[in-house]
């Protein structure tokens, strides 16, 4: 295994009863890059994310992160290891304000004990203050700092995606999984997000995204894997994938059916 | 004496099953734990008693009246409380808490109207016969109770399995959204289910009231707990499970009371229930019921 690979997925399979959702899926996400996973609806893309983040356990194969296996780890432990994600159908905490949402993401990095908390010790106050400042900084990255004390439920759809993004970053991930990050965004929002994802990569994070918007994926990703009926049918640079006959068939065939 | 105990167990078990059937059907169709079901049971027995003693109605008329009365209570609860909660998409614990309130109101009303003391049916209206089968004393009353309980359950089973109404109800239990898209009048059937299940609860109240000939405002509470035990044994929302679970509880209770202390009988039942929930929340006899959104 090369040390440059942040995430290695090898021969992963997943079935629910007799239904095989994923079969023999293998690919590597290199560090410091943006990786894309595309494929028709129902191909099993979100299942891949659920397996990586520990919400599901693979039926076969191995998943390694920074050289150590993720299999059998619980979701919160995987987050501690440095993987964060957003959801296709946004899952922010609607009854909290934006600042609290982001601060939830810092949970593991606030290291005060119960006694310090009860006595309201200096260390505890300082830690909370730092967390609040950091949360504001993350909110300003996504352009939401002026709404920090708004209830998350009152945000527009696009803003909710941005908040989820900031909240994921708050866990201090090494790898960020984005499930359809631009769904429901307008072109100018997409351009801004594209820049932000590039910035994040340049800060040293790895980014792994599922996306339907081909222009977005092709313009942003360093490498792309294509999933169809639970199998990887192509993997490579955007150009290689674009010209792969199997990919063209999968997509055109899909359009016939649609 | 075992045969005598078995007869008692069958009588109790059949009424438990009848009670639990309504309870489980509400959960299956409306996805609500109706904690007022015990109070509705109590309302049924008071309704029958009132008709017998104030209107001099014959027992079978009083039974029908009790079903109608408690059915209307169930219908009102659905229309006035559960429907607005559904419309608001309230969290699933809201209806459960509201039905606790309904239970308190019904119990308190009964206490205010009829007093807290134990009331009894006049002896002369009870079916009087008693005969010996082998060395078992069989009361005509017990035969009647078992017969009525099984008859009603049979009607319900056939309705659910064989009729268009039953198919529609099962479709709703599977997914209300899909049922709605298939053109099923989901709201209407929620009302029907509420009425029917409450009517079954009410008649169960009459049968228990007759069996022990004792009616109190608090009688619904232990019955509710037994209903909960039964549907957890049988699997929540599982019709067949409620039948088997009800009979099982009847036997377990009678046998443990006969061979252990009467109080510890309850503890055994609830301890068992508690263990089942920990080990197999989907029930001992039931299949896992999970509704898709």
């Amino acid at each position: 295994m090369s040390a440059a690979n942040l995430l290695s997925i090898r021969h992963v399979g997943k079935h629910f009863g007799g239904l095989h959702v994923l079969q023999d899926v293998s690919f590597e996400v290199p560090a410091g890059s943006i990786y894309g996973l595309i494929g028709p609806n129902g191909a099993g893309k979100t299942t891949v994310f659920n397996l990586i983040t520990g919400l599901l356990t693979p039926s076969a194969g191995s998943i390694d992160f920074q050289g150590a296996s993720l299999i059998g780890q619980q979701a919160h432990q995987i987050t501690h290891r440095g993987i964060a994600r957003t959801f296709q159908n946004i899952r922010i905490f609607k009854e909290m304000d934006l600042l609290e949402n982001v601060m939830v993401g810092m949970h593991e990095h606030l290291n005060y004990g119960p006694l310090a908390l009860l006595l309201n010790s200096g260390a505890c106050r300082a830690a909370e203050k730092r967390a609040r400042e950091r949360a504001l900084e993350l909110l300003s990255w996504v352009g939401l700092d002026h709404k920090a004390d708004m209830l998350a439920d009152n945000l527009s759809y696009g803003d909710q995606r941005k908040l989820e993004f900031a909240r994921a970053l708050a866990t201090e991930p090494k790898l960020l999984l984005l499930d359809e990050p631009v769904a429901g965004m307008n072109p100018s929002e997409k351009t801004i997000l594209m820049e932000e994802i590039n910035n994040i990569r340049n800060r040293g994070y790895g980014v792994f995204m599922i996306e339907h918007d081909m222009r977005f994926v092709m313009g942003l990703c360093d490498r792309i894997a294509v999933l169809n009926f639970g199998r990887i049918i192509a993997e490579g640079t955007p150009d290689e994938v674009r010209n792969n006959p199997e990919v063209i068939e999968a997509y055109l065939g899909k359009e016939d059916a649609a | 004496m075992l045969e005598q105990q078995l007869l008692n167990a069958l009588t109790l078990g059949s009424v438990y099953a009848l009670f639990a059937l309504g309870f489980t059907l509400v959960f299956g169709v409306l996805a609500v734990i109706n904690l007022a079901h015990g109070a509705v049971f109590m309302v049924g027995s008071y309704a029958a008693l009132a008709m017998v003693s104030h209107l001099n109605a014959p027992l079978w008329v009083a039974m029908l009246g009790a079903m109608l009365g408690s059915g209307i209570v169930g219908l009102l609860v659905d229309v006035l409380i559960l429907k607005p909660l559904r419309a608001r998409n309230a969290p699933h614990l809201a209806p459960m808490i509201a039905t606790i309130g309904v239970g308190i109101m019904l119990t308190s009303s009964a206490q205010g109207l009829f007093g807290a003391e134990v009331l009894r049916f006049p002896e002369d209206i009870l079916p009087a016969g008693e005969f010996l089968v082998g060395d078992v004393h069989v009361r005509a009353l017990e035969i009647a109770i078992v017969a009525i309980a099984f008859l009603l359950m049979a009607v319900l089973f056939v309705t659910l399995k064989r009729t268009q109404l039953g198919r529609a109800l099962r479709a709703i239990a599977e997914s209300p959204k899909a049922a709605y898209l298939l053109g099923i009048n989901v709201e209407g059937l929620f009302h029907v289910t509420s009425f029917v299940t409450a009517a079954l609860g009410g008649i169960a109240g009459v049968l228990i009231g007759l069996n022990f000939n004792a009616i109190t405002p608090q009688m619904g509470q232990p019955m509710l707990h037994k209903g909960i035990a039964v549907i957890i044994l049988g699997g929540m929302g599982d019709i067949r499970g409620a039948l088997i679970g009800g009979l099982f509880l009847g036997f377990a209770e009678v046998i443990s009371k006969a061979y252990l202390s009467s109080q510890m009988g309850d503890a055994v039942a609830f301890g068992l229930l508690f263990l089942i929930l920990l080990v197999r929340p989907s029930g001992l006899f039931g299949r896992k019921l999970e509704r898709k959104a």
Partner: protein
Amino acid sequence: MEWFNDFWSTYSTLVFTVGVHALLALSIWLTLSCGLLSLANAAFMGVGAYVAALLTVNLEWSFPAVLLAGAVTPALVALLIGAPVLRLSGVYLAMATLAFGEVVRITILNLEITGGPEGLNGIPLITEGWHIVLILAVTIYSLARLRRSKIGRAFEAIKEDEIAARLMGINVDRYKLLAFTLGAFIAGLAGALNAHFTFFISPREYGFENAVDILTMAVLGGTTTLIGPMLGGTILTLLPELLRSLHDFRSLVNGAVLILVVLFLPKGIWEPRRIRAFFGRNKGDQA
């Protein structure tokens, strides 16, 4: 001062009860704030009350030690049953905790040492007003600290979306167990205090109805703040006194309150955001 003495001799028990109910309401607030509907709090209160009363009567422990034991014992029970029970969610959890409560009640009913159905008589009247005030104050302060910390945020996150909370790195199982155990601790403390000013305890006081009463306090007051449950507890303690003239119909009002609150005030009567919105002010610094 004479009017005060008169008032106190008539109403001291009532005032004590308000304090104990406020504690109970806070104990269920803890589990509710984590999204858990547990109906075990009355049973935890009973365990605390019996343990405390027996230690006072039989072993003549000092009061602080008795209170501590009355709080720690139910907390240990909660810790023990919590791991398996808290795997259940929603109505299954409610049913399991209800069944647990019945097991506790029936056990107390059948033990020799607890006095069975007759209960325990002649518990010394040790609890004084300042005991309750002090314990309530410490509880409120601690919970207020907790609420504004990473623990409170974790509870809230779990309540809103368990999966999202897990993916924020929160050990959901551990925090649920914490809420459940702390709730049992406070309920036990309330039970221990209560036993030492009522003279008499019996298994009847710790059954399903009492679990529902505790839940009603929190639902009525609202669980978005700490004030809500205490307000609910106070109202529901005083209401029956005000409604004495209704006799047997008294609890009718309790039932109606529960229904009306669920229908029309889903977040309880004390909900700062709505109250502020009503007075047309923006959300300012949240206290």
